């Protein structure tokens, strides 16, 4: 066997054996000392039997035998193993090769590759474990502080158990109130910034300064009460600098209102150093092998320098947290990898695809116009929406919210582009469905307005600027008003009446709906009690939003408020939209069962516009269906609407549910609905929503 042949096979520090039969091999090439030691001085041309040792190699021969039997040119490798001889620890790998009709067994000395790989993985694994520990600790302390803090209405002062946890934390903790005034900062935080409690400065203030200057989305996090996890850099001239892992988390009180902020900080300078010792780890995400945030930012800046137009798309994976919680992080990781595999084929080789956060990806898309970019986003959404099957056992689904921004139209710097992409992505996230939202001036304006509205809403809650209007519901068999729907109205002293369509979505997004919803319940029960005292036994229905159904404290709140008022629960009704039913059937089912136990009735609002199936309606304790006004509005003009209304009434009758038609404005509509068995009507034909006093007079 010539050396050129070995070179052809890419073999150098190796030994080559040819299989003669079963476990008998002839040495073709093997001069290296390690081989001579391992095979007891076997020389070229001699036979050796591999049936007992090296044990790893004997085991590999099972695979090799199967491979050789295929009689197909190629090779399989054993993987690296360590073999202890009398005087050395060898790092070896075997390959079974079939070439030109001959079975070869080749042994490689992997000493150099082993050391290289060990050096790289040593850093990588130390880093992995450190990061896991930091995040684990942050998560743990956040859970503790959140659960302790949510017991009090405001984080006015830090209560003893919370303080104890914070004082003993190994990493920096700062708690700020809703106005970003510091309430607590622990010694570890002072130490991180080389400060002492006796110094003039405050580490929490310094931390805020760093956040504002280094994190473009920080304002948005504060405005929207979101959570954020990332890294910041602190430079303390002349020689001190630190990389800090930061978790910013809103603290909410029992009613879900934001009452403060929790900042958790850990020194990760050492991990950063480890990262920098390996470029691959510094610029690439280990899970997906995509470029990471640092690489993406650098690339974005370089792209701007070329002055050619492009789009930046910010992709936020919806429901990943839910997947992680339900199936475990390993399944979540599989889903992320699969997302990458599904999106990558849709991109061109000029595009840059990066993973910039736990559930965030970013793409720079070149040579594309608005329409094509929108279509590309649509394709990505469709691809990601398809279900995921992990280990043939778990089926899960995620969605995608995409924010899009154009260079140079929307921004000229990397900071600007990412800030606006972040805003667009945040807006897209508010949509239940997976959508793309491009940045625009309007978006900026509406974001500003939304922030103003949120602040005004908070004031409205404090200053009691809400009022309940009652819209009568007519019982068609008795032609009497037997119930009413409570509708919230907001009178802003500076602007006048604000439409619920304007403020309810913002209350939903900010969590203020919980507080407002509780006020509605309280006020409805108060008005009902007053009416009943006057002998007017009316039933009142209240609209519930999805967030309220998810609020664990709501059931107790309704129970207690009813009990305090002494009102019979049968006079209270809760209205839910179809969307709430579909969202999480089990949760809604449990919720409604509890409501039913209390004696409160349930209506499905805006029926016909959502996706609730017959099976849902059968299984849930529901009393009324409210036909959406969109079907009633053109009832006489469109036969299709008449067909839908008749079908809903027939279906409700078969399920023994009563039907309320909303938006009735004309006598013909009333006649049609009555003729087809509708039980109740609501609409301007009888009365618009009235103030309590007017309603009382009407009765």
């Amino acid at each position, binding site marked *: 066997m010539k050396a050129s042949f070995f070179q052809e096979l890419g073999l150098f520090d190796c030994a080559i054996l040819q299989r003669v039969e079963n476990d008998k091999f002839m040495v073709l090439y093997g001069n290296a000392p390690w081989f001579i030691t391992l095979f007891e001085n076997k020389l070229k041309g001699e036979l050796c039997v591999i049936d007992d040792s090296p*044990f*790893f190699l004997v*085991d590999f021969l*099972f*695979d090799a035998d199967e491979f050789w039997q295929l009689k197909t040119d190629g090779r399989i490798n054993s*993987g*690296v*193993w*360590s073999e*202890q001889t009398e005087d050395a620890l060898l*790092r070896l*790998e075997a390959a079974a090769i079939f070439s030109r009709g001959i079975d070869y067994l080749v042994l490689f000395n992997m000493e150099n590759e*082993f050391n290289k*790989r*060990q050096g790289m*993985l*040593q850093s*990588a*694994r*130390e880093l*992995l*474990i450190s990061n*896991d*520990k930091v995040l*684990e600790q942050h*998560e*743990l302390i956040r859970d503790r502080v959140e659960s302790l803090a949510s017991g009090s209405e405001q984080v006015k002062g830090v209560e003893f158990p919370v303080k104890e946890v914070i004082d003993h934390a190994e990493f920096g903790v700062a708690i700020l109130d809703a106005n970003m005034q510091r309430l607590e900062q622990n010694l570890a935080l002072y130490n991180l910034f080389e400060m002492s409690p006796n110094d003039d400065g405050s580490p929490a203030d310094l931390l805020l300064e760093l956040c504002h200057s280094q994190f473009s989305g920080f304002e948005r996090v504060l405005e929207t009460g979101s959570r954020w996890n990332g890294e910041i850099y602190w430079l303390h001239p002349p020689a001190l600098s630190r990389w800090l892992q930061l978790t910013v988390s809103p603290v909410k009180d029992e009613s879900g209102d934001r009452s403060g902020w929790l900042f958790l900080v850990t020194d990760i300078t050492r991990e950063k150093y480890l990262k920098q010792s390996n470029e691959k780890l510094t610029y690439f995400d*280990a*899970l997906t092998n995509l470029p990471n945030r640092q690489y993406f930012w650098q690339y974005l800046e370089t792209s701007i320098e070329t002055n050619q137009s492009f789009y930046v798309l910010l992709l936020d994976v919806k429901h990943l947290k839910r997947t992680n919680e339900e199936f*475990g*992080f*390993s399944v979540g*990781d599989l889903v992320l990898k699969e997302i990458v595999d599904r999106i990558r084929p849709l991109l061109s080789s000029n595009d840059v695809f990066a993973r910039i956060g736990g559930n965030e990806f970013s793409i720079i898309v070149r040579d594309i116009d608005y329409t094509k970019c929108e279509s590309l986003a649509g394709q990505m959404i469709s691809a990601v929406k398809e279900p995921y099957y992990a280990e043939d056992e778990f089926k899960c689904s995620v969605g995608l919210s995409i924010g899009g921004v154009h260079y140079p139209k929307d921004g000229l710097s990397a900071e600007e582009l990412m800030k606006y992409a972040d805003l667009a992505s945040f807006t897209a996230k508010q949509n239940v469905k997976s959508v793309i939202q491009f940045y625009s001036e309007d978006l900026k304006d509406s974001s500003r307005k939304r922030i103003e509205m949120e602040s005004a809403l908070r004031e409205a809650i404090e200053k009691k600027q809400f009022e309940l209007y009652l819209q009568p519901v007519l019982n068609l068999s008795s032609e009497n008003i037997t119930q009413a729907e409570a509708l919230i109205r907001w009178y802003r002293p500076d602007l006048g009446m604000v439409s619920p369509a304007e403020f309810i979505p913002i209350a939903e997004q900010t969590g203020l709906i919980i507080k407002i919803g509780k006020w509605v319940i309280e006020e409805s029960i108060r008005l009902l009690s007053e009416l009943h005292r006057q002998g007017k036994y009316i039933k009142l229905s209240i609209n519930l939003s999805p967030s309220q159904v998810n609020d664990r404290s709501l059931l107790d709140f309704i129970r207690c408020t009813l009990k305090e008022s002494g009102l019979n629960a049968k006079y209270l009704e809760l209205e839910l939209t179809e969307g709430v039913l579909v969202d999480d059937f089990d949760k809604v089912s449990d919720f409604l069962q509890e409501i039913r136990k209390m004696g409160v009735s349930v209506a499905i609002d805006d029926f016909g516009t959502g996706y609730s199936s017959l099976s849902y309606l059968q299984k849930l304790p529901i009393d009324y269906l409210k036909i959406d006004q969109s079907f009633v509005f053109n009832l006489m003009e469109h036969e299709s609407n008449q067909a839908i209304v008749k079908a809903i009434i027939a279906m409700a009758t078969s399920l023994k549910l009563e039907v309320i038609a909303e938006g009735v404005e004309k006598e013909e509509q009333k006649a049609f609905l009555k003729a087809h068995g509708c039980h109740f009507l609501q609409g301007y034909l009888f009365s618009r929503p009235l103030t309590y006093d007017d309603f009382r007079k009407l009765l």
Partner: protein
Amino acid sequence: MIQKKICMLGASAVGKTSLVKQYVEGIFSDRYLTSIGVKIDKKVVDVGDSSVQLMLWDIEGVDRYAGFNPKYLRGSAAAIVVVDQTRPQSLLDGLEICRMIKAEKDVPVVMVINKSDLPKADGWDGVAENDGLAMIEANFQTSAKTGEGVENMFLAIAELALKTKVG
């Protein structure tokens, strides 16, 4: 002499190599050195009247850099899944590895909760309330550092392996 192949698996840095080193050579090093590939160590142990040679396959930690290789399980009489009680994530990873072993081969699996000389992580008990623990034949507390529980654990493995026909 009867030979039994035992596979040692687990996430990175849980102490698989240290357990083998403590058991076979009676030494321990505080310095973490990541394992690459496989290393096989042997030790003879007496179980009742029989002597068993344990072939301990110390396999590189399963993580995002090295996947689970089911081929290594071939011919094994038992598998030891090592977890680190200072890292709850290692238990989750360990349970996942147990599931993969069970899916591949009907072999007894024991879980070894290592580093018992160190305080248990705060979140450990929450993670340990896991249905997945039902698939494990036995579990042991060990400290590769002090040697506590190590000898007993391997003896129990030898007994378990003797009951297994293969390996």
